């Protein structure tokens, strides 16, 4: 049968296949590079990075819950300089796209990081306005359409690379947020970030996380993520990158059929470090089984 084409294009950037890593779950690629061949996946998305190093939250930062986990890392990161000096050169050695996830407390913080990355070997910027685990910035920008619009505009004005706005699921109407991002010039949206959750240890009568609340991710959230991706994809014309509980090629395809042009694997890397590469193979197998030659034919076909 004819060649299978798994290429997808996000904001003019061609990915060899739609499988990405979800920010914060794959380090800067180094750690899981021991398990998967980074050349085989569409893009590596790095952990959120800020203008200066961030310490993150106190521990415990992670807790297991039914079919998923909570995390309240609090965006610990070594700062954008270390990223540029250590992580980007490492990623450049691979034939994969590099997406840098950017976080900040103020609009200026975001802009500073984006400007610093302007001439670096970065293909796309993912702007994280949806982390539920830090007090300032982040999610505050991602839960009000006007705030999202403003920060998108500010970042877009300075960004040399196309920008992906990463949306929070902790909102009443995801379409409103996707539209605000699009209206402000975002090149793509990605969703979902984690859903705010809580776990209590009934024997010690304490919170499982030092931060009390944390972000829920893993298979438990998949139906919510698929729904939001579907809604967002029908609300905007820019590409949608889908994530939330993806564990298998079947899950990835579910997001693609719902309207995602690419997908990202998060928490399930922890369960099975080979997930990303296995999904690439599984998508090809699905395409062969159903005689689909171009992956793009599948994007958003379930309406």
């Amino acid at each position, binding site marked *: 049968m004819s060649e299978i084409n798994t290429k997808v294009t996000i904001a003019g950037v061609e990915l060899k296949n739609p499988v990405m890593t979800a920010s914060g779950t794959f380090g800067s690629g180094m*750690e899981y590079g021991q*398990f998967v061949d980074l050349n085989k996946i569409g893009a590596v998305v790095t952990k959120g990075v800020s203008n200066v190093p961030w310490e993150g939250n106190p521990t415990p930062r992670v807790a297991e819950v039914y079919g998923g986990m909570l995390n309240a890392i609090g965006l610990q990161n070594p700062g954008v300089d270390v990223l540029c000096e250590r992580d980007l050169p490492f990623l450049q050695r691979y034939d994969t796209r590099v997406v840098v996830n950017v976080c900040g407390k103020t609009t200026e913080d975001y802009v500073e990081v984006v400007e610093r990355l302007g001439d670096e070997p970065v293909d796309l910027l993912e702007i994280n306005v949806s982390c539920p685990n830090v007090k300032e910035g982040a999610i505050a920008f991602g839960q009000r359409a006007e705030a999202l619009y403003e920060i998108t505009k500010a970042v877009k004005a300075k960004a040399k690379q196309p920008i992906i706005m990463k949306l929070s699921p902790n909102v009443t109407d995801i379409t409103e947020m996707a539209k605000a991002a699009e209206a402000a010039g975002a090149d793509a949206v990605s969703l979902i970030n984690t859903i705010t959750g809580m776990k209590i240890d009934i024997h010690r009568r304490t919170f499982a996380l030092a931060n009390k609340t944390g972000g829920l991710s893993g298979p438990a959230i998949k139906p919510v993520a698929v729904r939001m991706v579907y809604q967002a994809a029908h609300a905007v014309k820019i590409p949608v990158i889908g994530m939330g509980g993806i564990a298998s090629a079947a899950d990835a395809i579910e997001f693609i059929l719902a309207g995602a042009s690419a997908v990202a694997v998060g928490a399930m890397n922890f369960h099975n470090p080979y997930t990303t590469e296995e999904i690439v193979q599984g998508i090809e197998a699905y395409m062969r089984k159903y005689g689909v030659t171009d992956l793009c034919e599948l994007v958003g076909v379930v309406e």
Partner: protein
Amino acid sequence: MRKEMAVILSQTKIASGIYSMWIKTELAKEAGAGQFIAVYTKSDAMLLPRPISICEVDKAGGAIRIVYRIAGAGTAEFSGYTEGDTVSILGILGNGYDIDGISGGGNPSEKALILGGGIGIPPMLELVKEWTAINRECYSVLGYRDELFLDKEFEAYGSVYIATEDGSAGTKGNVLDAVRENHLRADVIFACGPMPMLRAVKQYSEQEGIRAYISLEERMACGVGACLGCVCKTTKKDSHSNVNNARICTDGPVFLAEEVDI
């Protein structure tokens, strides 16, 4: 480092709620004292692997021993496995004890104080084996609440001192009480156990001017350094994080006591 399916060679209950399991795995080749594996449950509700220390390694036979306590649903599940069952593991994880480097290399007169508390005792067994295998001496001091386990197995590798909280065996009190009672002195300390014990060991080592290596625990998600879930505070800026946080799963679990802020 990889995830693989291991086969259970044997499982024995060695004390109330405490189990010893030998598993056949290619990973044995890479395993050393102080390192750990992450063990996956078979339940779809529990997706994160459980970190469990290496208690013994049989490199020739390609097998690893783990000794664990039932602490929740995951370890309860493990305790039900029997010979021939399979289990998914991720490993070998962590830095382990750098036996040769630690004490300036091969000086046969170096003596170690090996302190294990509770479920922190198992990793010390492989340590005493590796330590004494290069002709060094050690004292093992093992602390328990009440019921003893593994203590007999330490006896082949030097003198063993016991502390129990209820005084039912050895010194009444903790491992440091036993150290003091028996006037034990050494050139280097290795310790694994509950946090209060590790804090006390850190303090003791500073007072006495003896270098101490302690093994830390924290909730983990990835086990491979990618998620930043399992950090501990460090006294110096950590080279990876660029802040005062080191990852226990990869930069540890063994740390020089003076380098961590616990």
